């Protein structure tokens, strides 16, 4: 039996798609929210480090699975090799209801106002496709606020002189510092810096019917056992389902957006939970499948007017993929600095973002989430012996005596850092797979060294007796912070969507995920993706009645 026609299909139940589905369903549209993964709970996974979403030698606990999903990656010799989700060269983002928001660290950053017009601030950057967003911070501000209130953020910007302007306080009080945070706060103040608690999409007090945080050691990379960590799976998606307007279909892999000969989207084709090919027709399609998979889906949706994929006549779909060039330093201390109060990351400084004329961009610096025992085995100064007595002594002595400070360097967009579709290789369902290639811009490395130096100074002031830096290189495969592959812009020649996430070329296809980002900020992107979900979803519902879209 054919599936009943709906107003909107939303592809991907992560940060962007979960919010859009809720906005549309509460706005009166009928919605099918389609997700290739399924529901996950803490009980299913526990605190097993080897199958978390942080370290995943055995598998990525929160998906996708190695059995049906693979990609191609450069082999370093001008060829390609097949890679699986639990390899770094795959560039994984979780595939489940809630996606990354189930297992993330939940930092709740707004980008800086200047992040929305970097080209105006810094001018053209050679070798980069840097541009201004068509959207300003002021336009997005109330959507950030909506995300902070509906999903739930704990924070306090009092001590951050560089906090982006905001109209309302955070809905929940900030978390207090753990022992690392207390040590680092004092040191930062002595250095004349401005430390403040990291805003978190995590309940510091009971909020929205969910419990307060119990400070698990295993937070980032894991589901929360009490639901204190807020994701779309325990906030907006249940609201969407409760309206009766939204149906969630899990274990369904979308293969193609159907675009007719007049250039309109008619719906989608997907493989259902039994791997049977199905069609779902709709008035409009919203793609929220993450920067890599959104691009892959558009590129795989070929039609008469769009032989290179939906909305891709200008060849910009899949280009400019970005992540963050994480940089920083590790410090060893004489005394124990570990107090087992999770998730660990709690303190930040904004002092080194956009404030130095010879440095383009920058990023926030934070103390890192708790490094679990296996993860810690790879944290060593270069040249260390990684096994035997040396290994064990280091592990025993320093596990509780080290602090990591790092920050997400804002990557300069590079046009040729991209997602393509492999011409030959297909996945389990027969869908052409993604392949990701390209190198970071030199500026990312330069800023990486700049910020790592600052991290080192901070650790030294805090009393570290031995410090080493960890600065990124040119090679990277964007994973959990992937963005930029369907950038928004005013010029249809150099962007994929308009400022509302609507494809320039097909007006009933929208994008709502990190793909829209023109650049990715010097911060974890989750809150911006959530805010863009409200922005795009709000635009659709406001313009629905009447209407040009129907």
């Amino acid at each position, binding site marked *: 039996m054919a599936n009943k026609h709906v107003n909107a299909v939303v592809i991907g139940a992560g940060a962007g798609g979960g919010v859009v589905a809720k906005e549309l369903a509460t706005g009166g549209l009928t919605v099918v929210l389609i997700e290739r993964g399924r529901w996950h709970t803490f009980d299913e996974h526990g605190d097993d480090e080897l199958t978390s979403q942080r370290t995943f030698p055995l598998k990525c606990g929160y998906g996708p699975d190695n059995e049906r999903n693979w990609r191609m990656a450069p082999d370093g010799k001008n060829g390609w090799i097949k890679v699986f989700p639990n390899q770094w060269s795959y560039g994984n983002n979780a595939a489940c209801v809630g996606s990354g928001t189930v297992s993330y660290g939940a930092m709740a950053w707004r980008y800086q106002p200047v992040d929305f017009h970097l080209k105006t601030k810094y001018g053209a950057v050679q070798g980069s496709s840097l541009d201004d967003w068509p959207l300003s911070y002021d336009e997005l501000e109330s959507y950030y606020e909506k995300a902070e209130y509906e999903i739930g953020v704990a924070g306090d910007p*009092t001590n951050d002189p560089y906090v982006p302007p905001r109209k309302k306080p955070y809905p929940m009080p900030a978390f207090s510092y753990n022992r690392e945070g207390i040590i680092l706060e004092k040191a930062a103040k002595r250095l004349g810096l401005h430390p403040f608690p990291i805003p978190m999409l995590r309940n510091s007090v009971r909020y929205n019917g969910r419990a307060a945080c119990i400070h698990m050691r295993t937070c980032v990379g894991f589901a929360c056992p009490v639901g204190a960590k807020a994701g779309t799976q325990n906030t907006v998606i249940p609201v969407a389902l409760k309206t009766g307007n939204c149906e969630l279909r899990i274990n369904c892999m979308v293969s193609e957006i159907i675009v007719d000969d007049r250039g309109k989207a008619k719906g989608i084709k997907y493989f259902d939970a039994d791997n049977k090919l199905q069609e779902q027709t709709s008035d409009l399609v919203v793609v929220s499948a993450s920067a890599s998979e959104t691009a892959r889906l558009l590129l795989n949706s070929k039609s008469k007017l769009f032989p290179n994929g939906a909305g891709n006549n200008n060849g910009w779909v899949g280009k400019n993929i970005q992540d963050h060039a994480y940089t920083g330093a590790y410090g060893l201390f004489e005394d124990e600095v570990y107090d087992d109060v999770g998730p660990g990351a709690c303190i930040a400084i904004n002092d080194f973002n956009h404030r130095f004329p010879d440095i383009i961009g920058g990023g926030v610096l934070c103390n890192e989430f708790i490094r679990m*025992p296996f993860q810690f*085995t790879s944290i060593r100064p270069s040249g260390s012996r990684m096994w035997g007595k040396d290994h064990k002594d280091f592990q025993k002595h320093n596990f509780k005596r080290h602090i990591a400070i790092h920050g997400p360097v804002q990557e300069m967009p590079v046009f040729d850092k991209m997602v393509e579709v492999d011409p030959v290789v297909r996945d389990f369902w027969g869908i052409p797979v993604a392949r990701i290639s390209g190198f970071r811009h030199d500026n990312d490395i330069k800023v990486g060294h700049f910020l790592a130096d600052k991290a080192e100074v901070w650790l030294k002031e805090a009393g570290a007796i031995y410090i080493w830096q960890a600065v990124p290189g040119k090679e990277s495969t964007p994973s959990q912070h992937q963005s930029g592959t369907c950038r928004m812009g005013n010029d249809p020649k150099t962007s994929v969507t308009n400022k509302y996430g609507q494809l320039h070329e097909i007006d009933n296809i929208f994008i709502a995920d990190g793909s829209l980002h023109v650049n990715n900020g010097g911060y974890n992107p989750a809150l911006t993706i959530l805010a863009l979900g409200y922005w795009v979803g709000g635009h659709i519902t406001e313009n629905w009645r009447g209407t040009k879209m129907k």
Partner: protein
Amino acid sequence: MINQSFSRREFVRLITGGTAAVLISFNTACKNKISQWRYLDEEEIGLLDAIVEQIIPTDDFPGGKWANVSNFIDKQLDTYYRKHQLAYREGLAAFDKTVILMKGKKFEDLPFDEQTAILENMEAGEFSGDYWNDHSPADFFDMIRQHSLQGFYGSPLHGGNRGYISYHMLGLDYPKVIGQNRYNDSSWSKYNPKSLENGK
């Protein structure tokens, strides 16, 4: 196909005889190779035990052997790491042969420090011989090293880290007791809506 001319008795004799034959062959197989392991055999486990004990040696805390790291590896070779089966089978055999050629003894029978020196050679890629012409000794060593660390520090549910020994060693409570001293009022006292003035 069962021929119609078979009498019922003949048929019964045939199938019971068949079963007996199967039982006998099963028995012989077991006698040759009684193994509690899933993929590796006793001899391979003996060698692997010596290697994992080098990766994580015993000191005032038990090492890789006691922590059942070989069991972890064997278990993964039957599940998540099926793709590494041949690498272990052929790599361990080649390693065994190489050591016997070098030292006239099996690796597991050598003194601890001599074992360490051999593994340092392997890590540095300094093995020679037919097998190592086509396979990187350094890669083989690094694979065992990685898997040993996973087995020692990962969850016991995967077969290693016996009794959460590595957590004891690091001073990590397991299970972590939720609710003890985790709450204080400082987060409340910081809450001050006026804080926004700074942000403007």
